């Protein structure tokens, strides 16, 4: 689905079209504008004591039937006045009554233009139009089918909450609010996408998040002229400073506890209606290698697991490249018995090492991609055929050497050890580039590639915060929660680059260190 940028941003500023005064005109216009879509329900009411026509309009799938009925009967209950005397005769009087009685519940509003009318309808509202008036009353009656809160499917944790976000932005925000019961948890909403009119909310904690970041983000969001936003990925891609970088600079999660934790550190969460994936900015490189569970488990285990993940990153990035380099350029580096072993394995393999690696890596990528898109029962078949049959048969046929299968599978498994899927994808792509350079220039090439990669990563920024912090720039305080995880007892400060300086992390707040500049 292509994202079209609207050519003319001024279009939004056009004059608001007022409603007609005649009910028939209004209803005809609604029918016309919606192309007679039959999920737009129009219910006309004839009042007992008055000739004035009234109609309720709502969209079938977006509303809850009971709420609609409640609202309508409530708004039109003036007929049941105990006096029995006819009090309301004119349109204006009906309207005033409705405003007075019905609007008291707070969820109702008065609308006078078409944009507002459709906005209400699409967000699940019911609109009551009165003949002879240019204004209408609406109420939030939203409901309909939504997915319930389920266990997270992409960011599974052994320990920690078992809930994940849904497609409904309201539910998602409430899930976080349940975790942070504090009036300072601020949510600001806006509608983005000129066609889709998608609800987008940003969430941060006032007083912890840096104001400049909030302002910066709002400016960025407002500057996006999008046709449509179907997933938070649209916003993520438009928000990135460096479009051509292979690294993602916006973190996404489907776990409310992850959002809560990050918001508490001073980051800002971006909720988009229609997707369970919530964006978090500013993002640093190490966030992609952290899982919320790290904070729930004890520090030593978490630290070890974080080191393991970084090791897996190295393997999945450099594994095949190092193998190519060692086998093609630096045979003297391999211990003699191992070299002879490898040489005997490669005996009879008809391809150069690079082609062999490429063959297996691409096969592996195909299996992986096919496995993801397949319906889950067939997905297993794919992995069995791919993993066992193909790997085994290729070795027996002498097309690839067994050591190569080990290297490629280890690489593949290592890439799954990255908690963030989008980072794992980037590494997957970069791996091929590094393999290519290694095939040309050996270890020297790998060194060049890593040098380029590291300097590129150091140049990246996410919402103004250096991507590689706290390593570059080096911030000792924040190192407590990057490569390793210090015991909670010692983590007294929030990461200084993303949060306001003077906030201590733990409840006591006693050990505030004002002169530390992180």
């Amino acid at each position, binding site marked *: 689905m292509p994202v079209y940028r609207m050519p003319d941003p001024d279009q939004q500023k056009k004059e608001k079209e007022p409603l007609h005064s005649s009910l028939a005109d209004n209803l005809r216009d609604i029918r016309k504008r919606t192309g007679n879509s039959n999920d737009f329900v129009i219910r006309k009411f004839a009042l007992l004591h008055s000739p004035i026509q009234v109609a309720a309009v709502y969209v079938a799938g977006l509303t809850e039937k009971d709420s609609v009925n409640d609202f309508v009967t409530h708004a039109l209950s003036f007929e049941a006045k105990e006096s029995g005397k006819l009090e309301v005769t004119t349109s204006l009087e009906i309207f005033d009554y409705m405003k007075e009685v019905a609007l008291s519940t707070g969820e109702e509003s008065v609308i006078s233009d078409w944009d507002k009318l459709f906005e209400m309808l699409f967000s699940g509202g019911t609109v009551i139009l009165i003949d002879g008036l240019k204004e209408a009353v609406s109420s939030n009656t939203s409901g309909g089918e939504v997915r319930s809160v389920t266990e997270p499917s992409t960011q599974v944790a052994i320990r920690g909450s078992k809930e994940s976000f849904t497609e409904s932005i309201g539910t998602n925000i409430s899930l976080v609010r349940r975790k942070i019961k504090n009036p300072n948890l601020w949510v600001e909403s806006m509608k983005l996408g000129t066609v889709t009119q998608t609800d987008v909310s940003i969430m941060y904690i006032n007083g912890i998040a840096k104001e400049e970041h909030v302002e910066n983000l709002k400016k960025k969001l407002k500057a996006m002229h999008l046709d449509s936003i179907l997933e938070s990925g649209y916003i993520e891609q438009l928000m990135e400073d460096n479009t051509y970088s292979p690294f993602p600079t916006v973190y996404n999660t489907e776990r409310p506890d992850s959002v809560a934790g990050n918001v508490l550190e001073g980051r800002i969460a971006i909720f988009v209606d229609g997707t369970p994936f919530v964006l978090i900015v500013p993002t640093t490189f190490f966030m992609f290698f952290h899982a919320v569970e790290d904070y729930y488990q004890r520090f030593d285990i978490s630290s070890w697991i974080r080191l393991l993940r970084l090791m897996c990153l190295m393997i999945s990035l450099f594994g095949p490249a190092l193998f190519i380099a060692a*086998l*093609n*350029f630096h*045979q*003297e580096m391999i211990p*003699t*018995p191992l*070299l*002879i*072993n*490898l*040489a*005997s*394995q*490669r*005996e*009879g*393999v008809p391809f*150069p*090492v690079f082609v062999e690696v490429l063959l297996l890596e691409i096969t592996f990528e195909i299996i992986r991609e096919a496995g993801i898109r397949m319906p889950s029962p067939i997905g297993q078949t794919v992995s069995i055929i791919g993993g066992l049959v193909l790997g085994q048969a290729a*070795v027996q046929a*002498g097309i690839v*050497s*067994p050591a190569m299968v080990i290297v490629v599978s280890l690489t593949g498994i290592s890439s799954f050890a990255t908690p963030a899927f989008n980072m794992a994808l980037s590494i997957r792509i970069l791996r091929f580039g590094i393999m290519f*350079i290694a*095939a*040309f*220039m*050996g270890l020297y090439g790998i060194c060049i590639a890593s040098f380029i990669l590291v300097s590129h990563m150091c140049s990246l920024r996410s919402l103004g915060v250096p991507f590689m912090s706290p390593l570059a720039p080096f911030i000792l305080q924040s190192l407590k929660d990057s490569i390793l995880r210090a015991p909670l007892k010692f983590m007294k400060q929030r990461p200084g680059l993303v949060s306001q300086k003077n906030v201590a992390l733990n409840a006591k707040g006693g050990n505030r260190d004002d002169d530390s500049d992180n």
Partner: protein
Amino acid sequence: MMIAITRWMLNVLVSLSLVLPLSGCWNSRELNDLSIVSGIGIDKADDKDEYRVTFQVVNPTSTATSTGASTGQPPITIYTSTDRTIFGALRKTSRKSSRQLFFAHTQLVVIGEALARSGINDIFDIFERSHELRLNSAILVSRNSNAASILKVLIPVESLPAIGLVKKSRNTSRLWGENREVNIFETIKGITGESELVLSGIQLTGDPEEGKKKTNLEQTEVKTLTMMKGLAVFKDGKLVDWMEGPAARGTQWVLNQLKTTTINIDSGEQKESVAVDVTFSKTKVAIELRQGLPVFHIRISEEGSLSETKAPVDFSKRDVILDLEKEMAKETQEEVKQAIQTAQRFGSDIFGFADQLKRTKPNVWKGVENDWDTLFAKGQADIQVEAYIRSTGMRIKSYLIKPE
């Protein structure tokens, strides 16, 4: 402006990426195109002033892994070439070998006895100069045969003979102590130093022709075998003679290279009836000139444990142990004395005394530099050994002692 910059950057990027493949994988070599050389043998050519260089090349199809059909070929192949230089011989081998020889994994260099006797000082330059050859390859001198025949012999248990020979020399120098692992780097150091060189010898027993065949290994007792035997003593880069048994071990003792060894000591009446495992030994050497003649002060402290006894001695008694310690010290002293006497007979200072003197007393060294060989031969050895027995093994009293 913006477009111009982007275009410029694009141009740079494209040119840079085009430069990349220009390197043309300059040093890339597939393993299938390499013959891994595991051992090099250097001999004198029979009647010419040339080297006959033997290469032991690994045959990857026959080294044990489960994949691929075994071709039934032996695990190694031998190529031999003669030339005025070693490098020349090495390149000439391309006429015989289907793959380029790859020397970075050369484990062993064997020098033929004939070549050793005529001088080895000038053969090691290539090992320092070449980027492939290693300085830490082990070096052995073939005894009573040429180097080629040593490299041709298949040895049991080990799949690669060269690695097997290196392990053999390591094993015996660690456990028995008559030989020592010497690598090329140390050899060159020995050649350039003031002292003389000593290398381990390896000897072939049995029929050399049988040793080349796999059938030789298809029996429980291998008929053709290589074994470590003696130390080759050099003088001015030429092999003088072989040193054997106690003298060889004494040499290791003086050189402070002894790791563990076993000595049989007398217990009272019975000769060599108690075996002591020497587990620790440290040697300090000091040299001084006394009335123009050098005196070698050698201080050895060693520790051992009792491993076996044939005599009914009661090890629970302190006196007995003290006596045994004295015997042990005497035995050690005897071996060291033999080593020094043998070396003095050859007039070859293989113990590094000259280097030691030069390092510690450069002024004294200047005075004796020119006639060190004769002075060394006349020098006196002052050997003092402290020996301790630290343990008696799993038992204290032997079952040989009858209960009272």
